[in-house]
């Protein structure tokens, strides 16, 4: 017989061990699917690992894929700290992508274009996030539902744009016109796709950590998230904190879209995001809402994504396994989080 017993304290090493345990559990659980697909489990994971982190090119590819998830992971982590349930990072990312594509297509000096793309993209994401936050603060509308549904609104607005006014009249493809060549983010390592946006993402994580841990706004976000009643009693304007958090969160998600337009695709198309906004939720949970943890968590998911494609080619296991791993990782982490508050105790015969 086992039972759960409330913990009085949580050991510090737990914070590091939990995500690792969750990831290990995920890989073990998913190995069953690989076996069902008729491939060797060790071989398949081996291909995944070498294709995603095996050589320097693979590492740059993984980092390029991690960058948008670092941004969406940060967006979700900061929002969830305030208990603003932003499930809308996907839509905010798309809004950032569209807005930055508009700006990037205007001829101007490259550095100015990149700066404006970032600013306008962040602003677009922030405005989208402001909608569910305002609805919650003013009318008590559930932010999970409104931010989630808004994703579809933004997605179909994007589709209307690229099927309509932006449609390539020459080829007939539903894609936006490309941004100016001068607005393309510089590549950092010759022969790879490692672009400036990746560095910005890596720098954003410690900045977000600093914001949460060391500023009064971060303090207010933490307190509001943990106990809004005590926050209000303590003189914190809870509504203002929620709105500020939403702006910040949306801006970060918008930057994910900016990076994809400026550094990877140079235009907007319907599949510009393979669900990076939703992956951000997994990333943030694996990171236990710590901005510094977002970077390794995003790299893990990116490695799974790039690795899964190579594994599919080499072993015939469908690449959809990457989605399964993502989903399983989230569930495993949620279960693992239970053990921060409870411990499993054996209940044997009493004396």
């Amino acid at each position, binding site marked *: *017989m086992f039972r759960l017993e409330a913990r009085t304290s949580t050991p510090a090493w737990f914070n590091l061990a939990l995500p690792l345990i969750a990831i290990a559990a995920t890989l073990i659980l998913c190995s069953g699917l690989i076996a069902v697909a008729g491939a060797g489990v060790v071989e398949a994971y081996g291909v995944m690992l070498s294709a995603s982190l095996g050589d320097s090119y693979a590492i740059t590819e993984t980092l390029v894929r991690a960058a948008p998830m670092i941004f969406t992971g940060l967006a979700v982590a900061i929002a969830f700290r305030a208990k603003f349930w932003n499930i809308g990072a996907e839509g905010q990312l798309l809004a950032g992508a569209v807005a930055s594509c508009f700006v990037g297509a205007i001829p101007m000096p490259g550095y100015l274009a990149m700066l404006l793309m970032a600013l306008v993209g962040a602003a677009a994401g922030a405005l989208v996030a402001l909608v569910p936050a305002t609805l919650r603060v003013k009318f008590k509308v559930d932010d999970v539902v409104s931010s989630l549904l808004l994703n579809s609104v933004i997605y179909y607005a994007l589709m209307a744009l690229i099927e309509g006014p932006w449609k390539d009249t020459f080829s007939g493809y539903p894609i936006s016109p490309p941004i100016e060549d001068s607005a393309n983010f510089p590549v950092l390592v010759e022969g790879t796709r490692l672009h400036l946006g990746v560095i910005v993402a890596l720098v954003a994580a410690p900045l977000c950590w600093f914001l949460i841990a060391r500023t009064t*706004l971060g303090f207010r976000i933490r307190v509001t998230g*943990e*106990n809004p009643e*005590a926050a209000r009693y*303590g*003189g914190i304007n809870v509504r203002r904190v929620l709105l500020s958090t939403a702006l910040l969160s949306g801006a970060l998600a918008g930057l994910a879209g900016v990076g994809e337009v400026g550094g990877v695709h140079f235009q907007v198309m319907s599949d510009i995001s393979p669900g990076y906004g939703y992956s951000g939720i997994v990333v943030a949970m694996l990171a236990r809402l710590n901005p510094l943890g977002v970077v390794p968590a995003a790299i893990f998911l990116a490695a799974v994504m790039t690795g899964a494609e190579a594994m599919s080619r080499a072993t015939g296991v469908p690449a959809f396994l990457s989605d399964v791993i993502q989903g399983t990782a989230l569930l495993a982490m949620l279960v693992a989080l239970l053990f921060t508050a409870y411990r499993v105790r054996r209940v044997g015969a*009493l004396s």
Partner: protein
Amino acid sequence: MSAPLIEMRGITKSFGAVKANEAVDLSVAPGEILGLLGENGAGKTTLMNVLFGAYAPDAGEILVEGRPVAIHNSADALAAGIGMVHQHFHLAPRLTVLENLLIGIPGKSGRIDRAGGLARLKEIGRQHGLSLDPNLPVSALSVGEQQRLEIIKALFRGARLLILDEPTAVLAPSEVDGLFAALRSMAAQGLGIIFISHKLNEVRALTHRCVVLRLGKVAGRVDQPAQTTSAEMAKLMCGHEIVPPTREASTPGASVLALDNISTSGHAGTPLRDVSLSVRSGEILGIAGVSGNGQRALADVISGMLAPRAGAMTIAGKAVEQFSPRELQALGLGRIPEDRMTTGLVTNLPLADSMVLPRIGTEAFSRKGLLNPGAIRAFAEAQIRAYDIRCPGPMTRAGALSGGNLQKALLARELAFDPKVLIVSQPTRGLDIGAARFIHEKFLAMRARGCGIIVIGEDLEELLMLSDRIAVMYEGRIAGTVSGADATVARLGLMMTGAEGHA
């Protein structure tokens, strides 16, 4: 007496290095009311949680009517005839009284047996004088009625031993009498009752026998509580004599807080109607009244959580304009909320965060939006030392502290900034004698330094001991004010029922 209903033998339970219970023996006979006394952290709740199956003991055994039983969870405990009424109720607010009783009770062929439940409810009501309207939703019940429902729930499930964890902490004095009558009637019909409390007068009035715990061990047993003085029992609990604090005479100065015809609306509780009162420097004003007569609204207005519909308030001569916590704080108001855990502190964050929360934006703890972690930590450490707050350090999760230590922390965070006027609600609710004594001394020391203090409370003995004047609230109004010297429990009790007008 006959064979014990429940017997606990040599119960030991440790949490890490802390022995919460050590070789505790305890027994309850049918028809007996046993008092379980002890300061916070003495191990009363742990012991009862072991009995109720929430914790597995490290050593020791539990016997029900002489037979050893293994209790792993509350279902085992209920099956053994043990029912518990927790301090925090476990009720579904949207369901009715009857539905709450039937939760978890298997019905007939998948259907809920309402008629059977109703009959049982009536029977329990007749037996013990515990009646409730079965069709009322729990959200419509007063706290006292919710507690009655919890007791009925335990009896409904066939409890022969009832554990009540500080049941009077949430009750008004008038409700306490009703509870005691019901408990006596249940005992007379052969039920065993364990009554946990640290209010000595209640234990002396109600129980047949007492077990006193201190630091996890049995510090003493009292066979005739009614014949034992409170001082003797307090000594057993604390391990030393308790001397009531002395109140020096003081001459109140100028008014530091004045309410002028304040009325409120849009509040969950009873609204205020034309409330005027004032507190002067160096004066303690007690606010008495049966719970739910506008005390909540009064505390909320004064502490900036509720803007009044009409009326004016001044602090140290300056008119209050926005009624926001920040404005009031800046005017020199100190505030200690009624509900420490939900309103006062952030239980999941470090204690230090809660201690600086109201003043995080001030120069003391931050500059230009950047926190000063060193100053925050130093402040928390200094207050922990000055107020003897028992905790591993400022980074301890606030929720891990005991009630008394939390209250000290809240007191420290306000008094460190030398308020001109202090508003506190139920300052010692749930605290043990030692901690309550500490809080009282701090209030009297602040009074001596010229602070004006408003104490909203239901414990009349406490108000009488502290207050220079006592105002009584009734249905949202001030029913009357008496000077501390003229006030007696009887007189206040009469005013609280609305019987006596302005005195």
